[in-house]
């Protein structure tokens, strides 16, 4: 099940207009992803930390989410220092740890945690529904927005159907092993899930037609204007501009 532990809150960040947050988080992430100099990356990292603090996120939940990237980063730390060409830092038998490899690993680590923290602070502090509406208001293609919202709505139903099928095979004594029978059963299970999802989609579409659906969605969401939004935006814009200037001047 999808959980949204950060979505409910009353912090300063929570009360910002979701549209401003989406735009700022996107621009910030792109700038961070394209930056290479360490002072820039470290500055961006501290901005992310400040945002996380401002959003008053539960530290344990934050760490739980960072753990997901951690495994990916671990893989990078194992592979890159050994496979990159360049000045060797350390040599163990046949293996050479190179300087550019280590530098790249550090960069990737800082970048990914920075972006992840920023997204947690700015984006996951709204529900997926609000995010959908914000994207809609930002004139993202309606199809994408509704793909997001419908996926969110029906992923639970499909999960339930999956669980039901799983119970049905278990109740008749199925135990998974590496036999052909086992693989075939899983193939049936997945196939059945696709068939059910597609007939479900058909019925949902019919139900929508019955309620006079003609291909256009309307949203009820309305966002309140507030000075806070502009203060936040100006602050973020200055920060982002600063990062870009530092990066371009090759400072550091």
């Amino acid at each position, binding site marked *: 099940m999808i959980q949204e532990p950060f979505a409910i809150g009353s912090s300063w960040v929570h009360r910002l207009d979701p549209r401003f947050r989406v735009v700022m988080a996107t621009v910030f992430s792109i700038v961070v992803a394209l930056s290479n100099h360490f002072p820039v990356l470290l500055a961006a990292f501290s901005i992310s930390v400040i945002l996380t603090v401002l959003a008053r996120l539960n530290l344990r939940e934050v760490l739980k989410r960072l753990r997901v990237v951690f495994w990916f980063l671990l893989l990078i730390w194992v592979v890159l220092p050994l496979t990159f060409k360049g000045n060797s830092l350390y040599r163990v038998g046949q293996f050479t740890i190179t300087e550019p490899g280590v530098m790249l690993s550090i960069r990737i680590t800082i970048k990914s945690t920075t972006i992840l923290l920023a997204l947690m602070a700015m984006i996951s502090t709204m529900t*997926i*529904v609000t995010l*959908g509406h914000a994207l809609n208001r930002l004139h993202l293609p309606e199809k994408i927005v509704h793909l997001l*919202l*419908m996926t*969110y*709505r*029906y992923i*639970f*139903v499909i999960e339930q159907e999956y669980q039901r099928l799983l119970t049905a095979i278990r109740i008749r004594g199925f135990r998974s092993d590496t036999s052909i029978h086992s693989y075939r059963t899983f193939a049936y299970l997945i196939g059945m899930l696709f068939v059910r999802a597609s007939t*479900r989609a058909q*019925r*949902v579409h*019919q*139900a*929508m*037609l*019955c*309620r*006079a*659906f*003609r291909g*256009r969605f*309307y*949203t*009820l969401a309305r966002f309140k204007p507030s000075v806070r939004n502009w203060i936040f935006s100006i602050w973020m814009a200055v920060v982002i501009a600063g990062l870009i200037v530092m990066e371009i001047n090759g400072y550091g």
Partner: protein
Amino acid sequence: MDKNGAIIHLEKVCFAYYGRNNVIDELDLTFHQGDRLGIIAPNGSGKTTLFHIIMGLLKPCSGKIEIFGRPVQKEKDFHSVRRRIGLLFQDADDQLFSPTVLEDVAFGPLNIGKSKEEAISISRRTLDFLGLSGFEDRITFKLSGGEKRLVSLAAVLAMEPEVLLLDEPTSGLDGNTKAKLIEVLTGLDLSYIVISHEYDFITAVTENIYTIENGKIFLDEDLHIHQHEHVHRLGKQPHKHI
């Protein structure tokens, strides 16, 4: 059956799913303003198919359909039909696709061109009427089965239809929600057709009960007197069944 003034009139309608015999075979049906009819028939006898044909979701292979006195054939003809006839689906999860209750109920009114404010006020009114006030911001997939059913009924009623088609509205409901549904339906000033397997429910909300046999629809007019043996506690004591 008298065709004049009929809301729904089907004449010799046939329908077959691909590669199978006709589920609906030369079916005639006339439904008037103010009628409340029930359909009890076995599984697979074509009850849901009949509803879907009326709504234009399935196209009959032959026969004539007139709704509100006008022949309907093409997808476009059915647009106005769908505004005036509300279909409650068998599975509420098919109907509730919006994330929040208010959005889902407002979906229909918005589609028929109501403004945002109007749609919201209609939706709130409908939810109030069904005793669901305070449900506006609830997440649809986290509702219980009974709540889902009532919300999907609200979604249909918010379109302010003249006729309701209810496809097994009581399936999976507990006694209380069923009683509530009976109360709501009998209190509505609407014509409707109800499909149900539950005899008690269908007799409580409809006047005439039909059945579908071999693809045709029949009025189950005759009272069948029948006897059967039964057991229950304290059965030895003299008692009456009414």
